[in-house]
């Protein structure tokens, strides 16, 4: 708990400090990074802690986005819009989760994919909310006492939710619920034998992840003023999957780094070439081929290598014979 609060405060301070050290253009991009980071963290929860690989996580993002975009025609207060986004996507997560979680592994993946594609086709075909063109809005986050208009305040607005999402996830992961979830991922049979209600843990995590992805989708509309069926697409689901993998599975902060790296790469490479999709695919394959964890694990490995180690004299098999001091003499 104490550690979580410290980590969250550190994160909050760095989010607050960021606008002072970067240019306005990068700030605009960083707002997107934070939104996608919430999205990626939520997927990271069910994949890295629940072992549930989903190719349908974009469903919740899209539902959150459409909730805000459609409802904003009638109301503007964020105190209604964002909870609506969270609740509707959370409910969808509950409904589909109850069906999908009966299956494991590849079956789970295929069913979540099918649900997402269903929404994609439905929203693209239906005339109700703009069909294939999507629905535009001109909603500004209305806090009740002020309206957020400038890019800087939007950044802070999103930043608040980002830090909050991180804090909630951190609490969840360290709670008995989160630990149970991880135990199920590592050895389901044992957890069943211990009397854990496996499906319950997975459903709770799935709904939490769905709700947070919905929140990210809602925030996304505040930034782009637009929701389109593309948000539901497999492409979107894959994008967020890549973020989680680049950053590092099984960590909370990994997906955040993944989101950052991905969006910066996408923005810079897209300005240079049209072949971003090709590069992304190759990147994906390379990551899989050399999969030793994501960037976060890599960083941890490097810091471990860089931190001064004890000087050891080893025999040919690598077993330690004696410890040496800096001048190379035995202690």
């Amino acid at each position: 708990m104490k550690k979580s609060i410290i980590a969250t405060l550190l994160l909050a301070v760095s989010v607050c400090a960021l606008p002072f050290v970067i240019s306005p253009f990068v700030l605009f991009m960083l707002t997107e990074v934070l939104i996608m980071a919430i999205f990626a963290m939520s997927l990271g929860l069910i994949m890295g802690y629940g072992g549930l690989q989903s190719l349908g996580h974009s469903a919740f993002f899209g539902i959150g986005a459409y909730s805000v975009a459609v409802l904003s025609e009638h109301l503007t207060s964020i105190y209604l819009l964002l909870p609506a986004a969270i609740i509707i996507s959370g409910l969808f997560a509950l409904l589909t989760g109850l069906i999908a979680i009966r299956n494991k592994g590849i079956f789970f993946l295929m069913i979540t994919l099918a649900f997402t594609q269903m929404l994609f086709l439905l929203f693209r075909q239906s005339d109700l909310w703009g069909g294939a063109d999507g629905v535009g809005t001109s909603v500004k986050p209305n806090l009740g006492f002020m309206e957020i208009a400038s890019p800087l305040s939007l950044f802070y607005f999103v930043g608040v939710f980002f830090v909050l999402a991180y804090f909630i996830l951190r609490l969840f992961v360290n709670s008995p619920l989160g630990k149970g979830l991880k135990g199920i991922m590592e050895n389901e049979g044992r957890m069943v034998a211990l009397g854990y209600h496996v499906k319950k843990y997975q459903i709770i995590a799935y709904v939490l992840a769905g709700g947070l992805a919905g929140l990210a989708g809602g925030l996304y509309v505040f930034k782009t003023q637009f929701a389109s069926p593309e948000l539901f697409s497999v492409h979107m689901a894959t994008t967020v999957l890549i973020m989680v993998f680049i950053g590092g599975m099984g960590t909370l902060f990994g997906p955040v780094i993944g989101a950052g790296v991905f969006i910066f790469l996408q923005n810079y490479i897209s300005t240079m070439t049209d072949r971003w999709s090709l590069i992304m695919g190759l990147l994906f394959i390379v990551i899989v081929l050399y999969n030793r964890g994501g960037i976060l694990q890599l960083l941890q490995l490097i810091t471990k290598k860089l931190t001064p180690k004890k000087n050891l004299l080893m025999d040919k098999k690598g077993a330690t014979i004696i410890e040496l001091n800096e001048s190379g003499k035995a202690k």
Partner: protein
Amino acid sequence: MDLFIVNTLSGLTYGMLLFLMASGLSIVFGLMRIINLAHGSFFLFGSYVAYAMVSRGMNFWLALLLATICVTVLAFLLEKFLISRFHGNEASQVLLTLGLIFVIGDISLWIWGGDFLSIPVPSIMDFSFAINESSFPIYRLFVIAIGIACAVLLWYFETKTKVGMIVRAGVDDMEMVGALGFNIRLIFTAVFLFGAALAAIGGVLSGPILGMYPKMEFEILVNSLVIVLIGGLGSWKGAFIGAILIGIIDSFGKIYLPDVSVLLIFVVMVIVLMFKPTGLFGRVES
């Protein structure tokens, strides 16, 4: 009544195209426990390659053959150098084949552009036959025939030949088959290539009917996945029944329930999975 027959036939046509794709997906999964998400890319790539040849004046049938060979070679390279490294590692397979979708898709976009393309119907079949007042293109009937022929071929292979026996045993217990002295690697590769070839044939045959456009592979892939889930993983019979079901539902849904037709096949999938989580003919535990 005419309309009913025509709809049933076009549903069957679509179903048979999906069957060519889904049967490979299903057998490959049943045997190797590999979910090849790039299977849809084989389908689309096959039709693009055939388009490139036909548009340069090549005979349709020759193009069908060459495109199938081309895709099979591609599948061989991918299997040998990439996919075979990740046997038994589901997560990596999913990611790897997802990456391949983007690579193959973007290369296709690069070469053939983003427009809707289609292969002209081969001239020998470019006519329709009459059903009372309505008419139905003979080419589509030919596609149905090919689909059924493939099903018969698969049935023959599975039940009457030694190869089929080995594959059947492999779906149940691959390790034991290996222990009995059969070359598992060779069987894996052969089945993978066979599946890819079927997908390519389906892709080329669909060229005059569905056409080609970017991101089509996702649509085909998802429909095939639904079929595989309904039919049961590892069973081509399941894929056959599932494909017919989905094809007919799709065809009639578009006419009688146009607003929700895209949902119908998923509703069917959910219902089937609720009552039979392994699918209709599936033996693979989920």
